[in-house]
């Protein structure tokens, strides 16, 4: 998607009107003939400051040795584990929220990714009205506003499938449906760029369908599958609407909902900042693992920017 040179270090200039040698062109990437737009550069740095500084401040005050959100009182881990009643470790509600988020992320990823990958593989070969309709339904599930989706899940579990009570099972079923489009879309896109030649070669050499999938397709699709797993996992950590509507008690309420329910009105306290920082750290670990893993799986065939956009769902 993004044009990167084969070395993956510097973006190659799209085209240069000036007759410059390739060496010089590489040294001056995308040189604007009008000089550098300092106003725009200042503007984007201001935007980034506005976008990210509040988060940094919130993380900073999660290690503040006091209740204040605006006066620094020294460094302390008290809101994470030292405080015996209010820390994330010792407050049963906050503690349960962390494990519920991890549980939901793992379960959803384990179900949604195989389901979506198989769906994409199947629809890639199966032509006709029925598969085309379901492909469209899958895309609709991708763009439908989350509130409407959450409402429909809430109603179906409270009036039709009443044996699925609101709680962990309902949350997982909802989250899998909401996230299954990620692997389906990403794998379908990868299949489209791969074409058929590899499988046909394998089939000509005598491989059967299972062997084609296991020995040829899955290795080729590994980066795409991995990227979609990263997206699903981090998406579930950050998910709010579905789990808010489908959770029923403190035992099955994940972190995002805890932050929402305790914070509005502004009486959360620094333990919530600690909880939010834990969420942030979890996402960060997933993203770094995702970035490194994606680059390893695609064997450097794609540049760093590609890996980055792939695990952000923009690739």
């Amino acid at each position: 998607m993004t044009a990167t040179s084969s070395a993956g270090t510097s973006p190659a200039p799209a085209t240069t009107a000036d007759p410059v040698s390739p060496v010089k062109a590489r040294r001056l990437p995308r040189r604007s003939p009008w000089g550098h737009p300092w106003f725009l550069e200042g503007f984007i740095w201001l935007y980034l400051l506005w976008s990210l500084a509040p988060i940094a401040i919130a993380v900073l005050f999660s290690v503040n040795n006091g209740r204040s959100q605006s006066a620094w009182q020294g460094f302390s881990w008290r809101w994470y584990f030292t405080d015996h009643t209010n820390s994330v470790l010792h407050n049963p509600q906050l503690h349960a929220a962390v494990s519920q988020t991890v549980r939901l992320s793992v379960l959803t990823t384990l179900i949604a990714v195989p389901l979506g990958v198989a769906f994409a593989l199947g629809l890639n070969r199966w032509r006709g009205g029925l598969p085309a309709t379901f492909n469209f339904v899958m895309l609709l599930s991708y763009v439908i506003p989350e509130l409407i989706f959450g409402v429909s899940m809430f109603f179906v579990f409270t009036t039709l499938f009443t044996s699925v009570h609101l709680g962990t099972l309902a949350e997982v079923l909802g989250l899998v449906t909401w996230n299954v489009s990620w692997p389906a879309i990403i794998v379908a896109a990868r299949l489209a760029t791969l074409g058929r030649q590899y499988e046909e070669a394998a089939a000509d050499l005598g491989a059967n369908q299972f062997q084609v999938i296991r020995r040829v397709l899955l290795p080729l699709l590994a980066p795409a599958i991995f990227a979609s797993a990263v997206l699903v996992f981090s998406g579930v950590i950050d998910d709010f609407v579905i789990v808010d509507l489908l959770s029923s008690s403190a035992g099955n309420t994940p972190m995002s909902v805890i932050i929402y329910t305790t914070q509005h009105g502004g009486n959360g306290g620094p333990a919530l900042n600690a909880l939010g920082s834990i969420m942030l750290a979890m996402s960060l670990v997933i993203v770094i693992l995702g970035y490194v893993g994606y680059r390893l799986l695609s064997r450097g065939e794609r540049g760093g920017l590609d890996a980055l956009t792939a695990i952000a769902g923009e690739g």
Partner: protein
Amino acid sequence: MTAKKATAPRFWIALAVPGMIWLLVLFIVPVYAVLAIAMGKLDQMLEAPVAVWSPLDWSSSNVIDVWRDIFGSASFAGPILARTIAYTAIAALVCLLIGYPCAYFVARFAGRRKGLFLVLLIAPFWISYMMRMLAWIDLLATGGYVNKALGWLGIGPVNWLGGHSVTVVFGLVYGYIPYLIMVLFAGLDRIDGSLLEAGRDLGLGRVRTFIHVTLPLSRQPILTGLLITVLPMLGDYYTNQMLSGAAHTSMIGNLIQGQLGTPGLEGQGAVLSLLLLLVLLIPMVYYVIATNREAASR
């Protein structure tokens, strides 16, 4: 070869079927359930909604109730809808005004720092939405840094979280602008640099090249980007609830979410959800088609 082709589809069908059944049971049926409840009745004893699955037995009582709420003499939903449209429109416009220059800069002028800017622009995607709202609640609180800074300028403390339209729109912009920027960046990055060079060679200055070349070429990314910010804003109840919580700033999302937990009103919540879905169906389908076309043209 022919024998192989005859057996092949069955194998691929078997792969697709689990996903299709899942979508049927847990996506198509639930959406139909909203319709069945919207067109259903109310159990007077339990004050619980009764889903009516057969279209032949549908009742219009919920629809009539919602119609009265919106257009009736004692309308309370009408102002909420108008407010939703106003907030969303202003927030989307502000997103575009801030987001376009950022995306434009990274796509055209970032050079080898493109990776750095992309990481910083994508970072909010990986930070929980609630964490981002929490951060602003700390800053906007009565004793927070924003009021401290204002006090330093001699402006008295403002109760930003006490139900202000400005705060809600601000929160919506802050929440959804990263999505717009990424869509715009992807679109602007694909503009062929030689077109801009051509503009310059034909004697256009920086501003006129932008107006006559870049801007017309960014119409599609702008449309998609606005769509990707407007769709979630219309279903947003949490930003509003966290940063204001007041009835006089509530949007359609708050209305639906409130009715969901209220006995006797759940049927009306279902009607409102369907109404929202109906309004958004055209942009949703447009988005699916536009992204498909874009993927095909790559």
